[in-house]
Each structure stands twice: as structure tokens, then as C-alpha cells.
């Protein structure tokens, strides 16, 4: 049975927010300003970005223009951004993102990868323990800088640990999913625990990050 796409479905987050089922993954897409304008015009409301994509300023300009022109209201948009590895300095990263995006808050703020920067010398990752980072993420919600918090690229084991101490539970786990990587167990676990799945590279393809595939960080 055909359903009009104006009846676009949403996922209800444990935080209370509504996440449109089809979002626009910005990654390093070319000509983003033009394409975002068109995306908003035809009905996209969920826009996914990250500090590492280096496109938050372009997105900020595009959404601010769309809002000024009355095409969309802030409360109808769902904007996600992520703190990149580095040292998981989440407050500094979110403040920078908000400034670039010209926003007072994002709808969802994610830890991009469970690990920080790779230190070649010691052959370890540099980051504080996740419980320390998560506490700082929770503080950002309390400060009103993000409506919801979540994670990306977390496996079941990491989520079990996080759920054991989280005061604010992760609203989402953004992971790679497509027909060659169906992620049955991880999806089942997340659904059971009210953690929404957001699938990146859903078609099994991606653009390389601007710095190329061999940089020294997770991407």
C-alpha cells in the first residue's frame, strides 16, 4: 500500500525527542550549501553532522537562511553533531559546534568513537575513562546545550557498561548498518534497551574523509 511521504515516520527517543527515520548524512558531501537548501525544501528535517566533518559552518549558514526565509522552524529541525576522538573534551567540542552551527542547542550530541586519539609511541588511545566523559555529556544536557546524548560505534559490551552507571541513558547508537553488515545482535540489544539505532553508510558506500583513509585517527 502506498503511503505519502508527508507521513514520514519518526522514531521516539528515550529522551522524548522525535527523530525522522530518514535523515541527511552530511559527511564530506560536495556542494553542501545548495543541496541542504533543496533538502530542507523537499522535507528533510533530520541533519547529521560531526565536528570532524568540517562542514558545520556551511550547515549553520544553510539552516539559518532557511529559518530566516520561513521555510522551517528550529523546533521542527533535528540536528545531530558529534565530538571527535582527540581527548573527548566534550564541552569544548560542543561549544565550538554550536557556534559554527549558529545554534543554541543541538537535538542530539554523540561520542563519535569510543576511543580517543591513537598514540603511536605508547600504542594506546588517549582519552579519559568513558564514565568521566559520560558525566560531562550529562552536564551538557542539564545546561540545555543538547536535548539528548548518545554514542556512535559502540558494541554491546561497551553499552552494557555505560548503562550500568548512566544517569541519562544513551538515546542512540549510530553504527554502520547495511545488507552486508546486518548487525542483528547489536540492534536487538539496543532496541531492548531503548537505544535508537541510526544507520550510517546505509547503502554500503561512503566518501572518504577529506584527510584520506590513512590518517592516524579513527574516523
Amino acid at each position, binding site marked *: 500500500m502506498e503511503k505519502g511521504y508527508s507521513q514520514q*515516520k519518526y522514531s521516539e527517543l528515550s529522551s522524548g525527542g522525535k527523530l525522522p527515520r530518514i535523515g541527511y548524512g552530511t559527511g564530506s558531501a560536495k556542494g553542501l550549501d545548495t543541496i541542504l537548501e533543496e533538502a530542507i525544501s523537499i522535507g528533510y528535517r533530520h541533519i547529521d553532522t560531526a565536528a570532524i566533518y568540517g562542514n558545520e559552518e556551511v550547515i549553520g549558514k544553510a539552516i539559518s537562511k532557511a529559518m530566516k526565509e520561513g521555510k522551517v522552524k528550529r523546533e521542527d529541525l533535528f540536528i545531530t553533531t558529534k565530538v571527535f576522538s582527540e581527548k573527548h573534551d566534550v564541552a569544548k567540542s560542543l561549544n565550538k559546534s554550536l557556534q559554527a552551527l549558529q545554534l543554541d542547542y543541538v537535538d542530539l550530541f554523540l561520542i563519535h568513537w569510543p576511543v580517543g586519539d591513537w598514540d603511536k609511541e605508547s600504542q594506546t588511545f588517549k582519552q579519559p575513562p568513558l564514565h568521566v566523559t559520560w558525566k560531562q555529556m550529562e552536564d551538557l544536557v542539564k545546561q540545555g546545550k543538547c536535548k539528548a546524548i548518545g554514542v556512535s560505534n559502540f558494541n554491546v559490551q561497551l553499552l552494557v557498561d555505560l548503562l550500568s552507571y548512566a544517569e541519562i541513558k544513551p538515546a542512540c547508537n549510530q553504527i554502520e548498518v547495511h545488507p552486508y553488515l546486518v548487525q542483528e545482535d547489536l540492534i536487538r540489544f539496543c*532496541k531492548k534497551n531503548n537505544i535508537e539505532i541510526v544507520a550510517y553508510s*546505509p547503502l554500503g558506500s561512503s566518501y572518504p574523509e577529506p584527510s*584520506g583513509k590513512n590518517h592516524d585517527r579513527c574516523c
Partner: protein
Amino acid sequence: MAVAILSLQVKIMIDVVDKLIISLGITKEPVVLELAAKHNKTPSQIILNWHLSRGYVAIPRTSTLSRLRENLESDTFEMTPEEIKKISALNKNARVWDLKDMEMAGNVPVFA
């Protein structure tokens, strides 16, 4: 002059990088093509519909205007549970972002 040449080189490099789309080729799978023909949809719409039918969110990226609408309209039809299962059967635990060529790969929990 030197600056102009340098910026041109950078621009060419960016153009080349943008064309290097990593693709696992799922849109060329016979089962996906067969379902696309059956439902009169594109292979990408079939795959996105598979995600939505499984009950979660997908964030496709594209820099092609026509694909924007195509992706957004991927929930305007329904596939049967059998058709969804056929697509899921393509699983081979292959990643786009496998980080295989990075020295830390074995230490990232999600890949362990």
C-alpha cells in the same frame, strides 16, 4: 601565480577525492535489482526501505539532487517479511569503515 597554481592543484585533488566513493556494490546485488524491478523502485530505495522496515533510522548521504528526493521517498512502499529476509541474507559482516590499514584497528572495541 604560484598561489593560483597551488589552489588549482588543491581543487583538482578535492575533485579526485570526491570521486573516490567507497562502495561495497550492494546496489548491484541480483536480489536487490530483482526487488527494485518488482516494486518499480531504485536499488537504493529498496535498501533504505529494508532499513526502515527493520524499525530504525538511516542517514544516507548524497550530493546528487535527484537522489535526495529518491532517498526521502523510500518509505512510500512496503515489502513483505520474506523480501526483507532475502535482503538480510546478503550479510557477510563487511564494513565500509573497516580501518584495516590503520595500526590501531585491532584496538578499537567495535571492531574487536
